[in-house]
């Protein structure tokens, strides 16, 4: 029989595993790293469950843990000068979607600088409120809004300019 904490985390996993994975994948642009993040985040959630005070929503709490861990990974990547070198198409809830188009969009998001990327993902992909985003990032509401506007503008440019996937050597598709 599952303990209370394990049961609670299992429930969180069922509800939010996709959100954690999506955030990790779009921030790290690496399928395997995103899977590792999912594992680590829910493991940390179990460890942290006794001290989770429900000041924030469960999704906000999980996203905060995810963000902390992702930034640690990004830092380590920087230190070891590792760069994106593989691309694995994601599983999509809508099978009608054009995989190539998804790849281009992911590439455009990958080209955003970190602050823009995380705000865009949290606000528009994860559909979190400005207040929740501010809480997760530790920013003011104003900073979230301004960064969001700039991120959207930059992403619009990236998409409109049609920066082609094939022009980026580090973005070689694996099929």
């Amino acid at each position, binding site marked *: 029989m599952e303990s209370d904490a394990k049961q609670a985390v299992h429930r969180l996993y069922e509800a939010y595993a996709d959100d954690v994975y999506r955030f990790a994948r779009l921030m790290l642009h690496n399928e395997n790293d995103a899977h590792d993040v999912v594992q680590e985040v829910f493991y940390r959630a179990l460890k942290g469950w006794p001290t989770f005070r429900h000041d924030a929503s469960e999704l906000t709490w999980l996203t905060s*843990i995810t963000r*902390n861990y992702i930034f*640690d990974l990004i830092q380590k990547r920087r230190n070891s000068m590792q760069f994106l070198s593989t691309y694995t198409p994601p*599983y999509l809830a809508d099978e009608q979607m054009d995989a190539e*188009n998804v790849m*281009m969009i992911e590439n455009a998001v990958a080209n955003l600088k970190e602050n823009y990327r995380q705000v865009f993902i949290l606000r*528009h*992909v994860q559909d979190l409120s400005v*207040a929740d985003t501010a*809480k997760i990032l530790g920013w003011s509401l104003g900073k979230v809004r301004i960064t969001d506007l700039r991120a959207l503008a930059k992403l619009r440019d990236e998409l409109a300019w049609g920066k082609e996937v094939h022009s980026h050597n580090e973005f070689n598709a694996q099929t």
Partner: protein
Amino acid sequence: MNSMRKPDDASKTLSKIGLAPGKRVELWDVIERRIDAEPPTDAQQETRTTFRRRSMWGQVGAAVAAVAILAASLPTVIHQGSSSELNNTTSLVNPSGRPNLDNPSNGAAHRITVDAITQYYANNHRQILAMTSYPAYHAEIVESNLDPTVANDFDWWDMDTGKVEFLAGRPFYMSIDQVVSENEVLFLATGGNSESPFVDFPYYIDAKRADANSPFADANLQAAYFPIEKSIAFGDGKVEVLSQLSVTSNGVTMGYSPIKGQEGSFAADSTGAPKTTISSIPGKNELLINLKNTTLHVNQTQLQGMKNVFVESVAAQTSGSDVQVILKLSKQAKFYTGSIDRQFSMPTMHLGFANEAPIKLVDSGTSEQTNPLFNTILTLPDGRTVTPNPNLVARWQDVIVSLRVTSLPPAYAGADGYIEIVGNHAVILSHENVSTPAGQALLVHFQRTAPAAAQSNVATDEYCVIFYGSEYAYVLDADVNGNPRMAKSELMQLLNQWEVPNG
């Protein structure tokens, strides 16, 4: 295609990304296996730890009234063994990182080594930041970190059984303040939290368990009081207006509101306080509260006449981009505490004062008056003090020292009376007279073997210094924990700072 190349469409597309069903199941299996592979300590984490912030405004009286002492249970038996024994025994960790602790053959206790503990954390990819021995409880408290971006965790290891219990930790940044008993450890939290940007006034986290066989399932948040002279900084760096300043029965309350035109931004930050530094003004009995990047919007005339038993006057002024609140204190104000209330749209910060240092309560102890003949104290060169309390054990260089007051040996024991004080399982190596500020004492060097239940033939190197008073014997115990050659000379130096009562 072009229609997809708009941010709105892009976000819709990306929101469809999810874990493939098979991968979802596979990942949970991995997580579950990892959870199940956790050592027994984590089983207790699954018991939900409850955090309660006790009222800090009515605590002082009760705290002051209760004087927790251990006089009623004068230790007459020396603890058996110490952490230094553990260095030479065989590692008890299996390849999975889980300590090999269970031996169902006879139910006897198994000791665990410091090396085994170290290996355990290494196998779990955790960095040990500190390991502190508590020989009186046969325990080690380990502070470890899994990820530098999050706060540390503290575990309690029972060295006799190898059982490990999670004490407290993430997401609160904290340090050990006091090991009250084997069932209670008090931590001082900085106010910071690795999963939120809020920085509260420092507070205590009191980790407790019902008994030695239970997990530390309860963690209470308690107000921490600091001497007026001590500076404290907290707050989240919000840019706000100080719009309310009032006195309460035992302190002051400050309320914050948004800067005009930035109400929306304030809403996101409303649950915090501006960066605040509290410090005493040298030479004056005044407290300066500096609120960073804050605007003053308080009616000065309302401040006139504000006072209570601790605060004689309140003044507020602008200093550059900061606001400074100056409290002129009465002689009653010796200690202060604080808290930030974020439950409402306008955050408030409360400061409370007290004239006595609230004494931390020992749950299991009864309040009794201290016998002055038990007032012995050892002051370490770094200023820490040790008193005859099994909770107070200090490591100094190569020795772990503790104090006890015990009965005088029976007259019939004669010159060998000190053996009674040294206790069981001890092989005396030497004894000699030494000088202390109180007079001549006896330095005994011995090796102590573990009790039979420990199934260990490892002996620890220990010293004790015995000063015979008229009614009690005062004992300074010193377990060698490091270089044995240095231990004795270090202990001799400590004797100069050992005070025992007259009589």
